[in-house]
């Protein structure tokens, strides 16, 4: 499918009318491809991500090494492909935790209304004011660096973002006629919340989860960058950016550039896709 870059103007818009916005299409394709690479990365990598070759250290792109090598002679392309897994796994788990917690909190709060909702709202506001990275750093400091400490911490930190967005839609749905009908039909509030309210807020949940994935990826990479997340010699984009710092002074920019660029592209793709989905999920019908 030919997607003309820089596509603005009526002509392109009309051609894609059936598919939708170019922004939506492009970001969806990009996010999809990157996710695919994360899944199959290690299988298509030309070299093992751990294979060192000191004689070929810090080299630029060449025929044998498409994206060059790092300071230990490992193939950057392979490390990037393998590292994609951890770079994606972290934010995936963060989004999963925050989605489940945030959605449950929002629906519970919207259902009960009154003082329950007010208290929950105040609690969320407090959570908002805590900077995410700081919590992740503290978490690693207390529980030890690695995958789980920052992921759990960030999962909790991202919960209010999901909760806030779901809450306003949940409140609106909660007051629709069909909810009262179900109450009259003696359906329990648990069942109404789970089987009826949750599906009706799904569009905004998916949109926010997609958007959050992008931000979580950047945050997770940042924690690894400062050494409190994934530890070297594991391959992960944030670790690679950090590893590449020492080579920058020697003019070897390839590791930092590749890893950094991948992070930026992925974050943008998921953020734009999330924003597009969000814009399309506001209406009821």
């Amino acid at each position, binding site marked *: 499918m030919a997607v003309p870059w820089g596509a603005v103007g009526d002509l392109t818009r009309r051609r894609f009318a059936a598919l939708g916005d170019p922004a939506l299409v492009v970001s969806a394709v990009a996010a999809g491809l990157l996710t695919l690479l994360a899944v199959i990365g290690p299988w298509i990598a030309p070299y093992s991500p751990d294979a060192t070759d000191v004689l070929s250290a810090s080299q630029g792109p060449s025929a044998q090494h498409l994206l060059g090598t790092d300071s230990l002679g490992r193939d950057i392309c392979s490390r990037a492909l393998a590292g994609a897994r951890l770079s994606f796994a972290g934010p995936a788990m963060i989004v999963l935790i925050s989605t489940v917690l945030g959605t449950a909190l929002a629906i519970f709060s919207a259902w009960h209304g009154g003082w329950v909702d007010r208290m929950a709202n105040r609690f969320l506001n407090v959570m908002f004011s805590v900077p995410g990275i700081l919590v992740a750093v503290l978490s690693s400091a207390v529980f030890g660096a690695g995958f789980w400490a920052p992921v759990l911490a960030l999962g909790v930190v991202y919960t209010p973002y999901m909760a806030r967005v779901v809450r306003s839609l949940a409140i609106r749905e909660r007051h629709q006629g069909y909810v009262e*009908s179900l109450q*009259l039909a003696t359906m329990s509030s648990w069942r109404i919340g789970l089987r009826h309210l949750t599906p009706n807020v799904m569009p905004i949940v998916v949109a926010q989860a997609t958007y959050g994935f992008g931000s979580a990826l950047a945050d997770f990479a940042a924690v690894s960058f400062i050494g409190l997340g994934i530890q070297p010699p594991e391959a992960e984009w944030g670790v690679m950016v950090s590893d590449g710092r020492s080579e920058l002074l020697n003019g070897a920019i390839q590791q930092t550039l590749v890893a950094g660029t991948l992070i930026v592209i992925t974050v943008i793709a998921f953020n734009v896709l999330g924003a597009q989905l969000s814009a399309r999920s506001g209406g009821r*019908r």
Partner: protein
Amino acid sequence: MTADSRRDLVLDVKGLSKTFHSRTGGPRVALHDVGFSIERGASLAVVGESGSGKTTAARIVAGLETASAGTVDLADPRRGGVQMVFQDPYSSLDPRQAIGPGLHELLKIHGMRRRTERSARVTRLLESVGLDERHAAQYPASLSGGQRQRVAIARALALEPALLILDEAVSALDVSVQAQVLNLLADIRERTEISYLFVSHDLGVVRQVSDTCIVLRDGRLVETGRTADILDSPQETYTQALIEAVPRPGWRPRRRTA
């Protein structure tokens, strides 16, 4: 007067009052000392304009609001004994659930465990409101306003209530479709022993669908009696003004003198 114990009443409301307290505006009296009753198989209309309290009264009877004072006695006090059909056909059905599964879910909660038993009942319910199997697979978005109200009626009937409250249930429908639903409601009442509490501002609808009616104004009972008597020879000036304001053949609009 007939003693209440000899009348087979499905609903008996006495001294119903409701005051709403908003955090900004202060107290608002929605209902004051309103009383009415419905016999088994009968239909009572609650007539009034905006602010009359008719919807509040209906919601209290249904159990969706609590009264500030007064009593609501139901012959069938079990939960689910009173069902309601709302005015807006577009928000009264879960948009993400198909019609058939929705009915199955209701019946499951009501205690019907065997799937075959439920399927038979779902088919009967749909037929009883003039729909069929095709509609069972559809989602609310593919149905028209009139069809959605039929589904809402079917869902209300699924729990076999003794009393069905219709809160302006036909007001949002086109005239030609409204007639279909009114006829359907009349047929259902003929076939079963169900009683109706019909909230409406439309006197034509009220005439066709109710035996007795009460007229509310600003939360207070203005007049009560048989529908035919009230509409043919209203005793109170407010009721007269209400009837005179309804467009009908030969009618002309008139300025209020007050």
